[in-house]
């Protein structure tokens, strides 16, 4: 699967762009969709991209195994009254969550109570992890400036940003940090605000105000993602405009067109020049960063809250399913012609049945966990490891095809 998305109706959707399929997964046991299980945060459980942590609106964090295609475990990390998750991180075996009311908690494995708790202000829109040091996290929210915390010493933030200077009329500038990202090579942090500004902060300098300020559009910026080289940043706003900004001077390099609704999550591919976006208009869009053209557009029926880009190459054709089809054909032929091979045929049939069952389970399971995927995305792009490609390269790939429907994986 190339992209994992969390929807408002509680589904975890896996989209394979190369196979042009979208599959729904929901939590074990629940066959119906449920808005209480709205997916609010997604992140990889470990750098190997084998498991996905799904944070739901009712405070439960579930683990989903990508290989098995099923939900493995779940744990309760907070009450729904605390607010929805605005950040979800994996710290080795433990995990850290952040709610919208500002409580950052670290949960050790197996325990029901939080090991560490940090109050990060009144309102936190987003929490992100530094790719270089997993213990450093950044938080920011409405009237809550950017703060960088070290989870091992949670008393005081390592860096706390200062608001911009007062305007020329001596009025206080409002600020609302919506999303942030750590720049890969250095200490710096990029944030985007609800007042359509993009700021770059440098904790190593004595200056607590932004080092660089850029403006885009007139609407609040909702999502942010750094490209692999760290020089360009992609931002998106509530009207569906996505832009690439250059971080050296703060100018708009270009605009990505196509989205019609507010974009909730944005992520650049860790290795390839691709960027995936999803939002309230129920579409997943993949643009190419070089020519800013839309490459793929997938209609996914529910409003999407967060996404995770896997490191596999979406342009590579994925053949494993074709192999299964061939096996099925062989079974049909065997069943028809040779009666004495029934033993073998039965075995193959059983395998097929198991596959079908697992596929059915996938379809019945509908995860309703919506987490703000932007956090996850940024962590992912940081964890650039050699991930196994999910399929060898196959022939020319037809781009800009729309994947319309949800289909059975073995079809």
């Amino acid at each position, binding site marked *: 699967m190339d992209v994992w998305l969390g929807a408002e109706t509680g*589904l975890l959707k896996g989209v394979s762009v190369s196979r042009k399929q979208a599959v729904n997964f929901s939590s074990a046991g629940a066959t119906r969709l449920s808005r209480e299980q709205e997916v609010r945060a997604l992140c990889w459980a470990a750098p190997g991209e084998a498991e996905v942590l799904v944070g739901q609106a009712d405070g439960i964090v579930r683990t989903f195994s990508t290989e098995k295609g099923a939900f493995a475990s779940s744990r309760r990390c907070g009450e729904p009254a605390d607010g929805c998750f605005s950040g979800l991180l994996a710290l080795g075996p433990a995990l850290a969550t952040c709610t919208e009311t500002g409580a950052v908690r670290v949960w050790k494995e197996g325990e029901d109570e939080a090991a560490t708790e940090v109050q990060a202000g009144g309102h936190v829109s987003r929490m992100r992890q530094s790719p270089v040091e997993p213990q450093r996290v950044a938080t920011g929210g409405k009237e809550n400036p950017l703060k960088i915390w070290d989870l091992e010493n949670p008393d005081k933030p390592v860096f706390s940003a200062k608001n911009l200077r007062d305007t020329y009329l001596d009025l206080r500038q409002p600020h609302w940090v919506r999303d942030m990202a750590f720049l890969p090579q250095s200490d710096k942090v990029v944030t985007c605000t*609800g007042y359509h500004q993009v700021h770059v902060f440098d904790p190593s300098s004595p200056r607590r105000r932004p080092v660089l300020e850029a403006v885009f559009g007139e609407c609040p910026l909702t999502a942010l993602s750094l490209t692999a080289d760290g020089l360009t940043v992609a931002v998106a706003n509530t009207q569906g405009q996505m832009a690439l900004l250059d971080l050296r001077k703060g100018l708009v390099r270009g605009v990505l*067109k196509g989205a*019609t609704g507010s974009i909730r999550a944005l992520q650049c591919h860790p290795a390839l020049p691709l960027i995936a976006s999803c939002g309230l208009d129920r579409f997943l869009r993949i643009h190419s960063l070089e020519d800013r053209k839309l490459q793929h557009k997938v209609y996914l029926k*529910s409003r999407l809250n967060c996404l995770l880009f896997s490191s596999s190459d979406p342009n590579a054709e994925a053949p494993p399913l074709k192999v299964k089809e061939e096996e099925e054909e062989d079974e049909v032929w065997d069943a028809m012609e040779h009666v004495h091979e029934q033993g073998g045929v039965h075995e193959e049939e059983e395998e097929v049945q198991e596959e079908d069952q697992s596929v059915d389970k996938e379809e019945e399971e509908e995860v309703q966990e919506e987490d703000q995927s932007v956090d996850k995305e940024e962590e992912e792009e940081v964890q650039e490891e050699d991930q196994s490609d999910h399929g060898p390269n196959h022939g020319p790939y037809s781009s800009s095809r729309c994947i319309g429907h949800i289909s059975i994986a073995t079809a």
Partner: protein
Amino acid sequence: MDITEVPVSEKSKGKKKKTKKTKAKDMSAEGDIQDGDVDTKDGVKMESEPGASAFPPTFSVSEIKNKQRRHLMFMKFKQEKRKQKMTIRKKKKKERIALGDKAPPKEVPKTIENQRVYDETTVDPDDEEVKYDEETDEFAAYFNGLTNPKVLITTSDRPRGRTVRFCEQLATVVPNAHVYYRRGLALKRVIPQCIARNFTYLMVINEDRKVPNGLVLCHLPDGPTAHFKVSSVRLRKEIKRHGKDPTEHHPEVILNNFSTRLGHTIGRLFAALFPQDPQFVGRQVATFHNQRDFIFFRFHRYIFKNEKKVGIQELGPRFTLKLRSLQKGTFDSKFGEYEWVLKRHEMDSCRRKFQL
């Protein structure tokens, strides 16, 4: 010199054909002789003089600089085309009559609605996920019968007469509607008060240059806000042969052609304006007809004369809406999240692609 002059006079000959027939005849005589030397196109044109329908010159009418001559040539060209079309039609009609029953079915003419680009968000009635999404959206309370619609109609500040009359007529059409003067109040302050008084809808008619031109329809508890462009408003007395004023009965609602997911949301938005129990005694019906992304609102009274014939009488105001944006929460144009925004340059480029 004849050869050099011929091309120029060829074209001029064509245009002056109507005025100087003698000269044309001379030229045609010459043209026959010089058939081999002259370009085939001119030769063909010569032959077309006597009335044959071969008129495919490789020249284009736009190359002629003189406006009158160009106009005449163009008229000729059009006449030729019409003649050809008539002959083809007559031939086809003869063939149809000759074949009788075995004639191939009539070809359906291409219309923009026929050629509409298939929209992948078209709602499939069997789709579970979309069904669940719709059942639990912001209108769930209304469609489950838990709330009754209560509409507050207001305008932008300082409305002129036409807008005020429009609001009053709208209030007669929508049951349980109340009209209030705006008096410079901020909508963000009005909305919490409306919620406290159990209103379910807030309708704001925007006015520009003494004419209503916009409509903001906000579903109240936390529902989506739709912003429409209003055009073609006809008040009751401007409608020809209109009926008497609408009564207090709840009308029936007809929603036509809302096929995509966005269309479904807007359709539900309109449906939730009216109470769920239409009073058939009143014989009134409100229609929202969507065609090519324009929503036409009509309000009629009907009467069945017999089982097959029905008479309708238009009452009430008539207007056209075009959706400009759909925002997720209540009215907040600055910080709200938009579910759909009309982007003209991207969406209006293809004539056959529609969003609703």
